[in-house]
């Protein structure tokens, strides 16, 4: 049956990528349909019950700055909040929260159901409808045909998902959910570049059987951090602590004895797992000399006893899992609620994507999340938002958008994916960002909200709050620059207390703030400094901008020098064998990758500056030929 209503954008999948995609598309004014095999699992946290962390928290703030849902849902569902790296610098400071699965899911569901322009429908998608090289809709399990002008595919680990526990394995999308087999089959038919990845999850524990009295407690921060720029700590639910324990030599012995039945070590699992999130059997094998490994016991929620033991992801047989859990301090009598498992799934080489996350092969078809070889809720949400937004922009016949590497972690994420491809599940780290000093959590709104407003995904409420903050920062900077203090009004004692030494001439307050050891709060105590701002978010911003001015200016110069190459477009149908002087290896790489800009091309591994020169010459010749033909 052909569904009678036509949609602008269809989003397939209701995880973190799918929900952000659907919300963004709808916010951008497009009639959007979210298709999920099960409406009950919209916004489900399939793995650990936490959001954020280093690099990831940055992504969440960026999603929030663009009007996304993740930060707000975390504020509503978060049961422990911490700021990581608080003492190591503004740029690497990151927010992390434990979330109550139920509350989080509920918050997402509420936002989806109340979003104008957005419709939900429960059906698994089996097939894509194509007209030539353009997607025209999807077909569901029941044979329903939904037509649309763009489709965003966020299939997660569901494409040909295969779950392993010991030597038994079965097809599934995640534990308890069916895999998407027909769709996987169909995508393979389309000759998209497919690969297999692996990820894993630990056994879950019944908290009533854990002896917390002998464990180390890890409370949340006080004052409680807030995730969303629109958030407020008063909206947080009751807060809970996490607990820390560790594996023992005996645990390792149990694991070693079980390795002969490990699908990972007996070659049953083919997919590549992440190096930074290894299974416990991988850890004790690769770091055999380490006597114990930390385990974080994370509460799954306020209304459940279920506990997520972070650090013992495993696909060992269940009997080994039970023994190893019970060898860990505090869990001697633990009851396992759900076995741990590894899951292999299809992903598509992201080199086949444009920076809009549209596939180069099929127009109107966008991919976001684990299907692109990433891992993590935050990475998925960020891509989802971008794909949903770009699908909407395409429908509205507007130019696609993707932030640059110096504008957002989202830009780093997408650029890394499409120029480097993935060899393991991709996770964000701050070390991936060469412009880390400007990509901070604290300024995500200043970096992105204005753009989001222009593109139609930032609502009036957020826009008003943002403007107020931005204007206050500008005004205070201006005030500091035009307020002067001199040795006559500042006593030697005051100067030494605030500045560390006497001042010998007149300075503006801003000049003084530029000094490494001077902070805003102290500076405001100088005679003649005027009244300090009450809004700490604003004064903090003024202070950070002053402190990092030199570094940021240097990075901006670096960015500027690359601008020409970044803006120079390369045709997607270009045959690089025609470029005079390129080595065959470089020709093949470029033909495989088909970069959109010279800047992208320069970041593909093995592409030398000389190759870029040749490319520039070739382009120039092309323009001339075109001119000559006119």
């Amino acid at each position, binding site marked *: 049956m052909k569904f009678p209503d036509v949609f602008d954008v269809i989003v397939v999948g209701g995880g973190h990528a799918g929900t952000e995609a659907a919300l963004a598309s709808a916010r951008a004014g497009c009639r959007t349909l979210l298709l999920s095999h099960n409406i009950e699992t919209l916004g489900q946290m399939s793995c650990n019950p936490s959001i954020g962390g280093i690099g990831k928290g940055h992504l969440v703030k960026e999603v929030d700055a663009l009007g996304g849902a993740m930060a707000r849902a975390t504020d509503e569902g978060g049961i422990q909040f911490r700021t990581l790296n608080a003492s190591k610098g503004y740029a690497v400071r990151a927010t992390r929260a434990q979330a109550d699965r139920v509350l989080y899911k509920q918050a997402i569901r509420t936002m989806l159901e109340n979003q104008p322009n957005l419709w939900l429908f429960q059906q698994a998608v089996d097939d894509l409808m194509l007209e030539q090289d353009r997607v025209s809709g999807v077909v569901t399990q029941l044979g329903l045909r939904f037509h649309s002008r763009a489709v965003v595919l966020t299939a997660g680990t569901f494409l040909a998902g295969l779950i392993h526990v010991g030597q038994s394995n079965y097809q599934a999308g995640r534990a308890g959910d069916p895999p998407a087999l027909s769709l996987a089959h169909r995508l393979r038919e389309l000759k998209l570049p497919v690969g297999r990845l692996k990820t894993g999850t630990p056994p879950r524990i019944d908290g009533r059987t854990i002896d917390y009295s002998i464990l180390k407690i890890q409370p949340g921060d006080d004052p409680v951090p807030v995730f969303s720029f629109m958030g407020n700590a008063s909206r947080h639910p009751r807060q809970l602590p996490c607990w820390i324990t560790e594996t023992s030599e005996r645990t390792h012995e149990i694991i070693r004895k079980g390795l002969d039945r490990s699908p990972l070590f007996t070659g049953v699992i083919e997919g590549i797992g992440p190096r930074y999130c290894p299974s416990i059997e991988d850890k004790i094998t*690769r770091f055999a000399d*380490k006597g114990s490994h930390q385990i974080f016991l994370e509460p799954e929620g306020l209304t459940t006893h279920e506990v997520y033991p*972070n650090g013992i992801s495993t696909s060992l047989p269940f009997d080994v899992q039970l023994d190893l859990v019970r060898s860990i301090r505090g869990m001697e009598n633990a009851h396992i609620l759900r076995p741990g498992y590894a899951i292999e799934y299809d992903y598509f080489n992201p080199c086949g994507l444009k920076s809009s996350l549209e596939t180069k092969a099929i127009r109107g078809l966008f991919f976001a999340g684990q299907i692109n070889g990433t891992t993590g809720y935050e990475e998925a949400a960020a891509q989802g938002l971008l794909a949903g937004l770009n699908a909407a922009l395409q429908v509205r016949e507007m130019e696609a958008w993707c932030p640059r590497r110096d504008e957002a972690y989202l830009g780093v994420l997408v650029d890394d994916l499409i120029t480097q491809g993935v060899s393991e599940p991709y996770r964000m780290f701050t070390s991936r960002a060469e412009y880390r000093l400007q990509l901070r959590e604290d300024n995500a709104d200043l970096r992105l909200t204005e753009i989001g407003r222009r593109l139609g995904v930032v609502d009036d409420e957020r826009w008003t709050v943002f403007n107020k903050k931005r204007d206050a920062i500008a005004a205070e900077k201006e005030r500091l620059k035009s307020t002067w203090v001199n040795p006559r009004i500042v006593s030697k004692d005051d100067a030494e207390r605030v500045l560390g030494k006497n001042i010998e001439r007149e300075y503006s307050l801003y000049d003084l703030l530029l000094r490494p050891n001077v902070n805003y709060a102290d500076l405001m105590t100088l005679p003649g400094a005027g009244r300090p701002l009450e809004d700490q978010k604003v004064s903090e911003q003024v202070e950070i901008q002053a402190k990092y001015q030199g570094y940021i200016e240097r990075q901006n110069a670096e960015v*500027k020098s690359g601008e020409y190459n970044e803006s120079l477009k390369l045709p997607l149908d270009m045959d690089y064998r025609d470029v*005079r002087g390129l080595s065959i290896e470089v020709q093949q790489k470029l033909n495989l990758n088909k970069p959109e800009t010279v800047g992208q091309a320069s970041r593909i591994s093995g592409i030398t500056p000389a190759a870029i020169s040749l490319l*520039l010459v070739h382009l120039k010749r092309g323009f001339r030929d075109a001119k000559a033909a006119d």
Partner: protein
Amino acid sequence: MQKTDTIAAVATAQGQGGIGVVRISGPASAAFAAEVLGKLPEPRRATYTGFLDENREAIDQGIAIFFPAPNSFTGEDVLELQGHGGPAVLQLILQRCLNLGARLAEPGEFTRRAFLNDKLDLAQAESVADLISATTAEAARSAMRSLQGEFSEEIHALLESLVKLRMLVEAMLDFPEEEIDEADTDLCRSGLQALRENLQNTLKAAKQGSLLRNGAHIALLGRPNVGKSSLLNRLSGIEVALVSDVPGTTRDVIREAIQIRGIPLHIMDTAGLRESGDEIENMGMERTRQAAEKADLILLLVDASNGRMLEDEEIISGLPRDIPHLLVYNKADLLGKDVKRGSGIYVSAKSGEGMEELREEILRMIGWRHQEGGAFIARQRHLAALNETMSHVDRAFDALQNPELLAEELRLAQQALNSITGRFSSDDLLGEIFSHFCIGK
């Protein structure tokens, strides 16, 4: 026209040559002219002027021509400085421009800019691509050559300590919840110190190629009247030493700077070595011995018509042992063709016979390996990269209290090194972290 930085390079073929040109192209060319020449020359007019160093002392005298955009080879502001040639002097002029903020041009970059700014016609343009790939291949070859041996070892030691330090710092920043031995300030400081030490060693190694810049010292020794001054005149091509038949004409050490294949050689022509009662001459001979001890190479001149005499043997036995010496038989033109010749070089300062062979042998003995021009550029590039690495390492010391700024300086240090060692991506860095630390909750 695209916004660009300012580039500089020696534009003439490397090696010997009467005139060498340093070409500068880009928006800062005029500003550089003001610094190096003390003024901006009139556009497109050859101006004879001094090229000044930081202390406003002349490096060289030569012709400067300023071509304002767009009427120049590249279509940008171009400054051409024509010096007296010889890699050493050109090198100083080029280095001056780099110090002022120019970037060393990539192979073919002037031509590329000319092309991109529509300064080449279509026929010329056809060859640009070929030129770029050819010069790049050449530069790559010479880079490979200069990255062998000791220099390469130094570079790798350096890279290793830099990557190790970055690994510690980045792991601390990206994985605060892992059980990583915290890269505390002391650890970072000692890491930085080790790094700086390596860097200094590497710079030392890199400067072994500084023969080009500083040249070698050569002492010219021999009995009186074997023709030392004549030989010097022949080597330098100008009358510098007083020539006479009276033994002992040269009473002092005459210093003369000459060039062979562009390598500066400081030749010390000395008083004839022999026992003498003449007090003035004795002083001259004392200076001669001192000069010999400071030399990189000693040329011992023997009268070929007399052969090695007892006095020659005495001089040889008195030479400093750790300094290489070369036996040169002068007045070879006086020998019959069938006379048996011993080891050493036979020349005639008078006729010029054997001089070419002598020049080659001098170069060989001071350690100059004949290389294609590219090697010189590659080495210069390395020095520039190493100096930039050093400046970031120095700044990293100031950032020890702020890990993310420390990390930034280390990133920039490595970025500078990348031009020598090749790209080291953030993913490579993560690879280092994951193989050293057990990451993953």
